[in-house]
């Protein structure tokens, strides 16, 4: 099983350990993991800014770069949603590219959805003693319907107690460029979310999306909260020894 990892910009730049965690998990499933070097960004910032031409210019080489693998796995609901839901829409006036986009979409999965689909009972070999809350990226929850999968995976981590956030359906206020275009409103949304995390009693917050996590972790740190924040893959791969998002290099 040849699996292409689409790393995504934020994992590549800000949280490589989430990428390595994803590789580790995929290899435990017996996959041969490849990282196509031609990848950069899926084009979502351009797409959501209304610049569909630039989005298409970025999508075409990525569609080609990811074409010859059994599966494409993305450690982000947002970027997976772009490939799965929005690429076919973006090329609706170009039948050839739309067909290619649909082929790619059919092979592409968000990481936790892929792991839940292909993983047996014993591929997770991690433990964590404490309470963990899962935050769902809006794209994962609503575009891809990824909701049960990450929870089922977390339940396989020994010693881990899962807790739910109040008003879990609410957006954290990241929204790509929204967080810097409307900092007041975004600040209010992330503050509500961080309060919900603090009130949940969780020791750890995880999510499948680094965008949400940088946002919420940044707010938790600003509040002085002790809750530690990791990408879901890091917890599933047993990589919680490393500093959490926003934590100092050395304790």
């Amino acid at each position, binding site marked *: 099983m040849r699996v292409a990892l689409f790393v995504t910009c934020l994992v590549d730049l800000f949280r490589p350990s989430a990428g390595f965690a994803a590789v580790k998990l995929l290899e435990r499933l017996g996959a041969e993991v490849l990282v196509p070097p031609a990848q950069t960004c899926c084009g979502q910032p351009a797409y959501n800014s209304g610049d569909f031409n630039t989005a298409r210019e970025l999508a075409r080489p990525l569609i080609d770069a990811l074409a010859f693998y059994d599966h494409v796995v993305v450690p982000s609901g947002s970027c997976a949603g772009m490939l799965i839901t929005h690429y076919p829409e973006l090329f609706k006036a170009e039948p050839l590219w739309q067909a290619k986009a649909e082929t790619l979409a059919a092979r592409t999965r968000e990481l936790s959805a892929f792991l839940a689909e292909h993983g047996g009972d014993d591929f997770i070999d991690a433990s964590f003693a404490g309470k963990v809350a899962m935050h769902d990226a809006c794209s994962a929850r609503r575009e891809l319907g990824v909701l049960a999968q990450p929870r089922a995976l977390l339940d396989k981590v020994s010693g881990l107690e899962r807790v739910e956030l109040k008003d879990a359906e609410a957006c954290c206020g990241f929204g790509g460029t*929204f967080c810097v275009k409307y900092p007041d409103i975004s600040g209010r949304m992330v503050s509500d979310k961080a309060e919900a995390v603090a009130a949940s009693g969780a020791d750890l917050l995880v999510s499948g999306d680094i965008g949400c996590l940088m946002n919420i972790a*940044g707010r938790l740190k600003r509040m002085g909260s002790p809750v530690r924040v990791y990408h879901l893959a890091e917890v599933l791969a047993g990589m919680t020894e490393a500093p959490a998002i926003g934590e100092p290099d050395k304790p």
Partner: protein
Amino acid sequence: MKPTAHAFSANAHRALHDRTLQQALAKAGVGFVDKRRAAIDSLPEFQALREAGKRIKDHTLANLDHYLLRFEQQVMASGGSVHWAESPEQACAAVLDICKQANAKMVAKGKSMVGEEIAINDALESAGFEVVETDLGEYIIQIAHEPPSHIIAPAVHKTRGQIAELFEKLHHQSGLTRPLQTVPQIVDEARQVLREKFLAADVGITGANFLIAETGSTVIVTNEGNGDLSATLPRMHIVLASIEKVVPTLEDTSVLLRLLARSATGQEITSYTTFFTGPRRADDPDGPEQFHVVLVDNGRSRMLGGDYHEMLRCIRCGACLNHCPVYSAVGGHAYGWVYPGPMGAVLTPLMVGLQEGRPLPNASTLCGRCEEVCPMSIPLPKLLREHRRQEFAQRLTPPRARWALAAWAFFARRPELYRQATRIVIKLLNLLAGGKGRFRSLLFAQAWTAARDLPAPQGDTFMAQWKQGKRS
């Protein structure tokens, strides 16, 4: 109403720092969401109903001309008349004509969003008519001289204390001096004041939730009964309705009514659901002498078959407002025109122009909760993005955002260069963070760091480490 949508950021900033407003919003939001959820959880066929509702609307919109003409025919057959208005001006002129012909002095008004859209109150008042809003929420904002901040709960931005204060100021002049501490006391006083207005009014204006082509009936749903009194007590009843309100049959209406009440207030059915068909008949005990329907287009026929066609399915339930994190944070007035929230962010630029309404489609994380709760399955995030596309194509996007996008795209299109450039930036940021793991403030990132720290990158990029052979 003069739009201030262009000033959304400033409006939002003010709203976020208005403590009374924040209290009112916090109280209202949770109620709407919980009640809707309870109503829908107890109706297993809700999804099927939702699909049926969408089919009804899609079919009607595809044959809108046919159903509108059929509706007109049936209204005339039942003794009423229909006035077609392409623009807000034409709609106001039609209403004024009817009122003048009736030698009216006072107009009692039920809640009507299309009335807000065409600014009918301003038109009537300028022409010398006294207008009284009879929906409690509308009455409150009328005496406060404010526009509605929600499409079904127009005064949701006001606290009980503010309302009591308004009533005391105004009603004391007419000799009402009872205490106004509780909600029932406030409602009682409004009822007493408004009852006299209903009896004195010459013309009643209501909106319509649906127009039924089969019977020529207009339908309104209310919880106060004010719509019924506005329609039946005065000599004349004028219905203001936009053209997409028409549905083929009574049976279709019942499907949409079940969706509307649950999505709006979480009720199975509203306290009053009233069907009006023509003026009073010879053997009717009451009812108006004349029945007029003013059909307003105001840009809707241009939306038909176009990029925003699906927005015409909207039944104005307000669920998208109630579930929107941006609306919940800033309230309706920040949106700067008649329609707030996600549905408003789609409609406002279409009705007042993209130049004026530009910020609204951008002020969204596209989280998709609006589409999820929309009983008509309107793809609101897609329509918001479509506005952004038009904005970019018309070069209305601010230059700074365009340049940033172009610069980023320049690198993203060149993987090798992108790797090198991002690696330099990441290493630099990591150095700047000095092992602390985060920034409390950072040049060019103040918008981010105003409310939260910026987590620092881990040291090197994934792609560089992978290329060097690192595997875990």
